[in-house]
C-alpha cells in the first residue's frame, strides 16, 4: 500500500477500486465457501437445523456400509477421468490438424451450437439415437430383418460408456474453445514453419513444441471438466447407469430420502465427493508432472514422426462423428415431438401435432421462468464481469504489480465454483437457505445460477479485454474528457462482439443448470430443465422430444440474436450494419 499512498489523488481511487473489486469477489465466493463450510459439521453428525446435535462418526459408518459404495465411486471416477482424457485428446487432435486449414472454419462454426445445447437435451437426443429401439437399431433392422429390438446395452449401460460418450460430445467443444483462445497467444505459425523446415511432421510439432506450452494455459479448464463430470447429476439420471448409479446421483437420492438421518449420510457423502474431486485433480497433476519428466528425452530425441496423417484423419473422423451424433440427436428430438405412433422397427412414424398442443399450456410457465432467470443472471453476470475487468484494468494502469495480483486473484476466485463439486457446496447452500426460509423464490434461483454464469462470462470476456488496445480509450478520453462516454462509445464499441457472445454464453449456461435450480427452488420455480429431467421418469418419448427441443432452441435463439446484434444495429428506425462489423 505504502508506495501507492505517495501519489495523492489517484492513489485513493486506486485503493477504492481494489477494495471494490475485492468486495465483489468476496460477495461472489462467500456463498460457495459457506456452502462447503455448512456441509462439514453435518458430515460429522452435527446438524441442529434438522435436530441432530451430537458429533459422531455414525454417518461415516453408514456410508461405508452402503451397498456397492466402491462400485459407485469407481463408476464416478472412471466416467469422469476417461471422458476428460478422451475430450482432451480429441480436442487437441482437432486443433493440431485443423489449425490454419479450411477445416478449422468448419470446426469453429459448430463450436457455439455444441456448447450452447443443454446437457439434458443432448442426452435425450443421443438416447433416442442409440437406444435398442432407437434410430440406429431401426436402420440396422431394415437390413437385418429384426422384428424386435436387440437386447443391447447402448444406453444406461452398467459401465457408463453412454455417459462417457455424452460427456465427450459436450466437453470436447469446450476444450477446443479454450485451447483456441490459448493458441492465439502462442507463436504457432512461426513454430510450425520452423519445425517444418527441420523436417518434423506437423502433428509432431504440435505435440513436442506447442503442447508443453499450451497445456499449462488450459490446465484449469481441464480440471473444471473433471470436477463437473464427477458431480454431474442430470445427465447421469438420463443416460448413466442405474443399478448402482454414479455416486453423485446416490447423494441426491439420500438428500431426498424421507428418513432425515440420511441427510447426514448425504453430507458425509458430499464430503467424500469433494475428497474424490481433490484427489482426482491431484492425480492428474501428478501424472502431468511425471509425464513431463519421463517424456523429456522423447521430446528431444529427434524423431520426426510417422503416423501424423493417420492421427489427423482419425481426429477429423471423430469430430465428424461427434457432430453427426449431435445432429442426429437433435433431429430425433424433432421427429419424436411430432410423433403419434412409432413402433419398432418402423422407420416412418405416424405424425401428429398433439404432443405440442398438449404440452404448450404447461410449458409457458417454465419457459417464462427460464427466460426470466436466464436473462437476469446473464445481465447481472456480464455487468459484474465488466466492472471487475475495468477495475482490473484500472489497477493495472496504476501499478503493474498490484494489477497483476488483483487479476490473478479474480481469475482464481472465478474458478472456485467450477472446480468444487456442485453437489457438495450446493447441498450446503440449500441447508443455509432452509434456515433463512429463502427457498422457492426466483431471485434465489437466479443468485445460485450466477455462481456458474458469472465465471463463464468473466473468463469469456477477460481475453478480449486483455487484447484491447488502451490507446483507443486514451484517444477517446482526450476528445470527450468523459470516462463514461469513452467507455460506452469507444471501448464497448470495439468490444461489442465479445460482449454479445458472452451474453449468449451466459444464457446458455443458465438454461442448462439443473442442481442449482432444484436446490434453490423447493420445487416452486420450475424451469424447462427441471421439467425435462422430471419427465425422464415418465418415459413418454413424445413429450421428452418436445421439452428437449425447446430446451435446445432457447439458447440457440439467444445465440442467433447475439450474432445478429453483433453485426447490425437500429438507426433511425431501420437496420444498419455496425461500424466495426
Amino acid at each position: 500500500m505504502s508506495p501507492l499512498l505517495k501519489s495523492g489523488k489517484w492513489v485513493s481511487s486506486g485503493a477504492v477500486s481494489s477494495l471494490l473489486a475485492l468486495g465483489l469477489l468476496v460477495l461472489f465466493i462467500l456463498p460457495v465457501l459457506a456452502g462447503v463450510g455448512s456441509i462439514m459439521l453435518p458430515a460429522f453428525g452435527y446438524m441442529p437445523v434438522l435436530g441432530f446435535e451430537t458429533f459422531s462418526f455414525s454417518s461415516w459408518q453408514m456410508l461405508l456400509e452402503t451397498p456397492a459404495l466402491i462400485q459407485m465411486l469407481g463408476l464416478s471416477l472412471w466416467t469422469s477421468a476417461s471422458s476428460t482424457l478422451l475430450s482432451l485428446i480429441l480436442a487437441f487432435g482437432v486443433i493440431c490438424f485443423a489449425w490454419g486449414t479450411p477445416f478449422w472454419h468448419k470446426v469453429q462454426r459448430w463450436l457455439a451450437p455444441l456448447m450452447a445445447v443443454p446437457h439434458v437435451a443432448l442426452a435425450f437426443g443421443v438416447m433416442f439415437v442409440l437406444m435398442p429401439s432407437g434410430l440406429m437399431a431401426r436402420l440396422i433392422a431394415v437390413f437385418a430383418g429384426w422384428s424386435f429390438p436387440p437386447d443391447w446395452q447402448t444406453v444406461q449401460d452398467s459401465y457408463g460408456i453412454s455417459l462417457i460418450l455424452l460427456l465427450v460430445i459436450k466437453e470436447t467443444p469446450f476444450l477446443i474453445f479454450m485451447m483456441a483462445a490459448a493458441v492465439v497467444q502462442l507463436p504457432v505459425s512461426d513454430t510450425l514453419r520452423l519445425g517444418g523446415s527441420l523436417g518434423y511432421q506437423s502433428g509432431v510439432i504440435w505435440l513436442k513444441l506447442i503442447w508443453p506450452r499450451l497445456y499449462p494455459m488450459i490446465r484449469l479448464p481441464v480440471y473444471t471438466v473433471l470436477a463437473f463430470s464427477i458431480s454431474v447429476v442430470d445427465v447421469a439420471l438420463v443416460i448413466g447407469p442405474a443399478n448402482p448409479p454414479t455416486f453423485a446421483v446416490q447423494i441426491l437420492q439420500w438428500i431426498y430420502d424421507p428418513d432425515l438421518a440420511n441427510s447426514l449420510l448425504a453430507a458425509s457423502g458430499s464430503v467424500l465427493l469433494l475428497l474424490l474431486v481433490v484427489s482426482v485433480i491431484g492425480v492428474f497433476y501428478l501424472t502431468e508432472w511425471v509425464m513431463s519428466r519421463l517424456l523429456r528425452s522423447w521430446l528431444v530425441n529427434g524423431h520426426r514422426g510417422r503416423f501424423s496423417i493417420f492421427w489427423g484423419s482419425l481426429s477429423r473422423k471423430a469430430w465428424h462423428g461427434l457432430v453427426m451424433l449431435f445432429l442426429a440427436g437433435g433431429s430425433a428430438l424433432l421427429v419424436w415431438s411430432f410423433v403419434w405412433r412409432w413402433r419398432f422397427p418402423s422407420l416412418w412414424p405416424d405424425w401428429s401435432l398433439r404432443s405440442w398442443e398438449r404440452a404448450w399450456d404447461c410449458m409457458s410457465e417454465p419457459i417464462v421462468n427460464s427466460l426470466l432467470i436466464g436473462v437476469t443472471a446473464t445481465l447481472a453476470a456480464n455487468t459484474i464481469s465488466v466492472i471487475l475487468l475495468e477495475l482490473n484494468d484500472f489497477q493495472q494502469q496504476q501499478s503493474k504489480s498490484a494489477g497483476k495480483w488483483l487479476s490473478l486473484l479474480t481469475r482464481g476466485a472465478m474458478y472456485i465454483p467450477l472446480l468444487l463439486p456442485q453437489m457438495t457446496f450446493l447441498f450446503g447452500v440449500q441447508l443455509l437457505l432452509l434456515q433463512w426460509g429463502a427457498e422457492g423464490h426466483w431471485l434465489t434461483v437466479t443468485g445460485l445460477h450466477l455462481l456458474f454464469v458469472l465465471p463463464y462470462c468473466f473468463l469469456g470476456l477477460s481475453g478480449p479485454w486483455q487484447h484491447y488496445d488502451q490507446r483507443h480509450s486514451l484517444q477517446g478520453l482526450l476528445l470527450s474528457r468523459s470516462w463514461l462516454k469513452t467507455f460506452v462509445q469507444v471501448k464497448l464499441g470495439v468490444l461489442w462482439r465479445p460482449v454479445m457472445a458472452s451474453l449468449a454464453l451466459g444464457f446458455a449456461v443458465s438454461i442448462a443448470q439443473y442442481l442449482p435450480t432444484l436446490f434453490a427452488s423447493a420445487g416452486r420455480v420450475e424451469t424447462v430443465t427441471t421439467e425435462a429431467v422430471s419427465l425422464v421418469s415418465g418415459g413418454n418419448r413424445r413429450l421428452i422430444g418436445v421439452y428437449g427441443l425447446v430446451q435446445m432452441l432457447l439458447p440457440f435463439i439467444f445465440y442467433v440474436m447475439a450474432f445478429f446484434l453483433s453485426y447490425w444495429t437500429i438507426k433511425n428506425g431501420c437496420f444498419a450494419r455496425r461500424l466495426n462489423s
Partner: protein
Amino acid sequence: MKKNMSSIRTWSKKATSALIMATVAFIGSASDIEAKTVPWQEIVEQSKGQTVYFNAWGGSEQINDYIDWATDQVEKRYGIALKHVKVSDTSSVVSRVLAEKVAGRKSNGTVDLVWINGENFRSMKQNGLLFGPFAEDLPSFQGVDPQEKPTTVLDFGEPADGLEAPWGMAQLVFIYDTDTFSRKQTTPPANASELLEFARKHKGRVTYPLPPDFVGTTFLKQLLSELTPEPGVLLKPVSEADFDAVTSPLWRYLDELHPLLWREGETFPANNLALTPMLDDGEILLSMTFNPAYASSAIASGELPETVRTYVHDAGTLGNTHFLAIPFNSDSTEAAQVVINFLLSPEAQAHKANPDVWGDPTVLSMSQLNGIERKRFSNLPLGPATLSPEALGKVLPEPHSSWVAELEEAWKARYRQ
C-alpha cells in the same frame, strides 16, 4: 339468481360460524379444533385468492393434463390458484416438509397439498407433519363408504385418521400385447412360478421397475405375498416377524429370475411408465401398472397399440388407495381443503375415471351417490384393455407399510452389483 341465493346462504352461515367460533373460544383453544368447527362455507370464503402448491408426481402426461383441468375448474369456481409442482419422487416432499419443521418453518411452508400414501404417509403422520384431521368433514366425503372400500380409511395398515382424503383406487395389473403374444405363441403367466417359466422361455424380455420405485416395490410385495407360506404375517409390522425366514422364498425366487431378465437383471428401468415404450417396441413382453385402466388410456393417447390387454394373477393382486394430504405448515389450508373437496366430488372423480382422460378408478361408492351422480360413472366407457371388476378378481391386502423400507434395503444389499 343463483349467486344471490348463495350469498344469502353465505351471510347466514358466516353469522352462525362467528357464533360458534365465539363459543369455541370460550371452551378451549380454537386452533386445536379449528379444522372441525369452521363451517364449510366459511372455508370456501377464505380460500378465495389463495395459492395451492400441489406436489404431485409429474411423470405422466394424462395425470398432468387432469391436474391442469382441475386447475382451471378451481380457478373458475373458487378463485383458487392451483400450481402443480411436478415431483419425481414423493419421498422428496416428505423430507422437505420434515426439514422445514425441524428448521422451525411453522408457517408459509413450501408445500400446500401432497399426493401420498403408504410409507410416505406413515412417515408424515408419525412426525406430526400433517394438517387436520379434515378429510371426513369434507362435504364430498359423504360419497365414500369405508365399509365397501376399507382401504379408503386404512392406508397400508395405517389408519388415515382423517389426515388424508382418498383420491383414487389402485390394483396391480400386468399389461401385454395380444398381437406379440400370438406371434410368439405364448400366453400370459397366471402366477409367480409361471412367470419364472415365462422369463426362461423369453430370455431378456421380462423386467420390473427398479425398487424403490413404487410399482417396483409393489411387484416385490406381490411376489412375496404369493411365495411366502404365511402371508398373514405381512399384515403386521415387520418388527413382529422373522424377516429373514418370511422373505427367504422371495430371494430364492429372484436369484433364479434375475439372470433371465432384460439385461440379465443387471439394471432395471426407472419406473413402470418407462416400461410402456419398451412394451410398445417389443423390447419387453410384459409391463405392469397400479392403475387397472392405464392400458386403455395409453391406447387412447397413442402410447400403446390397440391390441394390448391386461391380466392379473389367479390368486389376486395387491390393491390400495392413494390419498391427498395437507402439510402442517401450509398457509393455504382452506384452499387446499376446497381443492381436495372438489377432487373428491362425483364430477371430478368421474372425469378422472374416464379412460380417455386418466382412467383412475374412483374412491366413491355408487351406493352413496344419487341417480344423476351415479349416471356419470355408469356412462363411462370401460376402455378396451380394462378388466371388469369381476375379472380383476381378488384384491390382496398391502403388507404393513413398515415392510417397504426393509424390503428395499434387503433388495439393494443383494442386487446392487
